[in-house]
């Protein structure tokens, strides 16, 4: 009930916050990040093969067993997690920066700047993201991470642009900014006190979702074997490579699946708790 009928009760908090879910998500992400940072330093070379020990079952020295080339699944997992986290963070950061700056420019200046940026974004919207990623990664063949990074970032910036532009338009058109104009407080004030505080939580939510999207997109590209080259360890690639062995060596499949699921669920929980608070 949104009517003023409840004016009297408006001060009584109704929505439940979820600090528990948020804390669990943060804990999970910190653990994964620690694994991704420390793991590659401590563990064996992820591409070191020991062909005589292929598909070795988990043991005390190799807690996750070995894959079909006798490589350490744990070491590969650590590298894959690091790659997923780092590359996704980079893609999200780039897309966020690009989209936010363009969105604010568009909303602030309007006119031809807005028209041009909007036209570009509309074109990007209608060009399938898949095509962008495919073409860009084909453009830089040889499995360079740059292509993957560029492709994913390019496919995502529009999202930030549209949201930021719409939101900034609302904020900049608000009485608060009009009042700031009448008080001649200047653009720095508008950005610091109006735009940024308003956009920050929104961007946080979007970035958490963007991480999920990027991680999933990377693993999916790994699955269709676009963008990455062996022996690079990547979660999607690991899942795909391990699939034929799902019945003889389930540890190979379960480990990357668990990490992938944990990563996305933690980011989603973080997003949800942000939205609710």
């Amino acid at each position, binding site marked *: 009930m949104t009517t003023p009928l409840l004016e009297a009760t408006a001060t009584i908090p109704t929505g439940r916050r979820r600090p528990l879910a948020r804390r669990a998500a943060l804990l999970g992400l910190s653990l994964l990040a620690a694994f991704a940072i420390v793991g590659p330093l401590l563990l064996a070379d992820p591409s070191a093969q020991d062909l005589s020990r*292929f598909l070795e079952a988990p043991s005390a020295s190799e807690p996750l067993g070995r894959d*079909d*080339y006798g490589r350490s699944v744990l070491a590969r997992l650590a590298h894959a997690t690091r790659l997923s986290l780092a590359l996704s963070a980079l893609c999200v950061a780039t897309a966020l920066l690009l989209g936010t700056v363009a969105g604010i420019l568009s909303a602030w200046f309007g006119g031809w700047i807005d028209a041009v940026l909007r036209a570009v974004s509309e074109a990007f919207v209608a060009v399938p993201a898949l095509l962008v990623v495919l073409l860009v990664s084909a453009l830089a063949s040889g499995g360079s991470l740059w292509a993957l990074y560029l492709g994913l970032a390019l496919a995502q910036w529009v999202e930030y642009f549209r949201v930021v532009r719409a939101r900034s338009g609302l904020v900049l058109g608000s009485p608060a900014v009009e009042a700031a104009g009448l008080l001649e407080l200047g653009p720095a004030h508008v950005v610091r006190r109006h735009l940024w505080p308003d956009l920050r939580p929104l961007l946080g939510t979007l970035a958490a979702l963007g991480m999920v999207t990027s991680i999933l997109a990377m693993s999916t590209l790994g699955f269709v*074997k676009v963008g990455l080259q062996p*022996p690079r360890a990547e979660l999607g690639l690991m899942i795909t490579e391990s699939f034929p062995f799902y019945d*003889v060596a389930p540890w190979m499949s379960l480990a990357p699946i668990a990490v992938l699921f944990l990563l996305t669920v933690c980011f989603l929980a973080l997003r949800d708790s942000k939205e609710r608070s």
Partner: protein
Amino acid sequence: MRSPLPLPTAVAVVAALLTLSACGSGSRDGAAAEDTLRIAGPFEVHSLEPAADGEVFTRLQVSETLVTSDIEGELAPGLATEWSSSADGTEWSFELVEDATFHDGSALTPDAVVEAVERAAAVEASPLAEVPIEQIEADGSSVTFRLSRPDLTLPAVLTHYSTAVLAPAAYDADGHVTEVIGTGPYEVTELELPASISTTASPEWRGEQPAVAKVSFQAVGRPESRALMAVSDQADVVFGLEPAGREQVEGADGVRMESSLQPRTILMKVNADHPILGDERVRRALSLALDRESMADAVLREEELAATQLLPPSLTAWHPDLEPLTQDQDTARDLLREAGWSEGSGGVLERDGKPLALTLITYPDRPELPALATAIQAALAQVGVRLEVEVTNSSEIPAGQADGTLELALIAKHFALVSDPLVDIAAVFAPEGNDWGVMNWHDDRVTRAIDALLAGGSESAAAKNRETIVRTAHEELPLIPVAWYRMNAAVSDRVEGFVMDPLETTWRLTDLQWAS
């Protein structure tokens, strides 16, 4: 307002849809179980042209070539019952089989053969383009080829699928094939490019009607999917399984693995003019670094496939007694040191401050190749060689050869595209190099031996020449053999009489019987 579809209705629609599809599957499988042989293979069919994706139609026994090969790889009559050459080997005559009829009911005429063969000769990718043909003539019931110089390999070349004979009605005005009208025991009933073909026994077939009357072929790209089809009875014959899939099949009931050694070798093609690889010692070191048995065991799941020399033992004539290629990392390191490479940073050898880094190109069309490349990468790292593996389109290999940028390529080279390996070996060791053979390497002994073989001669001289070729290649390693190749198929117990043709000229569907 007209209210949108109410939820219950929508639920009902989808439920109905799903049920319908389930029923559909039931009926289809039921029909299939009765009389259709279901084949699944990795390669898609994008074109009906014999020179492009023609092999699938010869394998399905829809179209036929003048000459074919038997299970031993020896030449056998196809559309031609017999053939002979003039004394100087420049004029070949092929006598056509009687009463052969195209699936559209028209009779096979020498003119139709000439038309088809001329089309093949015009396509650069066909081996026939290499044959020095001056003229092809229809002559009563035979076809005569006139050559500008003698070529003993012509009958073998005519086993190639690009020379398959289609009816004149198969072509449109521009010469594109619109329909595959062949002379084989099966005719195409349904065709959905790129993935599925259905055939049925043709009433026009001149021979005995085959026991298996209906055949369907489906192209399935992912090897793990194919393995699933094999074990869950969704296909009767499945080609191209990965080791993991083979294990699944071996562990499953009602389906078995069939295999035969193919005249194919997985090998590293080397740019012999490369500043690093031009040194024979480096090539030998690379070869010595490889633990072929373990690689074959881990990747191909069969230790015996580790290549001990260039050509597999199944090509008896081309498999002389040679010192087998083995792993010896110490010798490999010594050789590299001799060649001027010394310890560098990060475990990679260096010479004049430059690391020993090489790039290996391979392609994903055969799933073993990227896997073996990964294994090679790891093995070379152990002797201090940094190998970048680039999995890309196979055409990068000839392109890299053309512009000289190629360093190493891991390829699976078939040595009997036509039934006589000599044709391919002559091409592979051509002194000017070959896109799927040597690069910037030639040896006069080898060239002479090949010329002598092509010119014909006594069998003892030929055996000597063959050994010269193989031995020289074995010592100088312009091509570094890695593994031989076993072609395999998962075959359902519903089917009996399955025979694996190592040359894959046909799938010999006419020999199959339904298990009683």
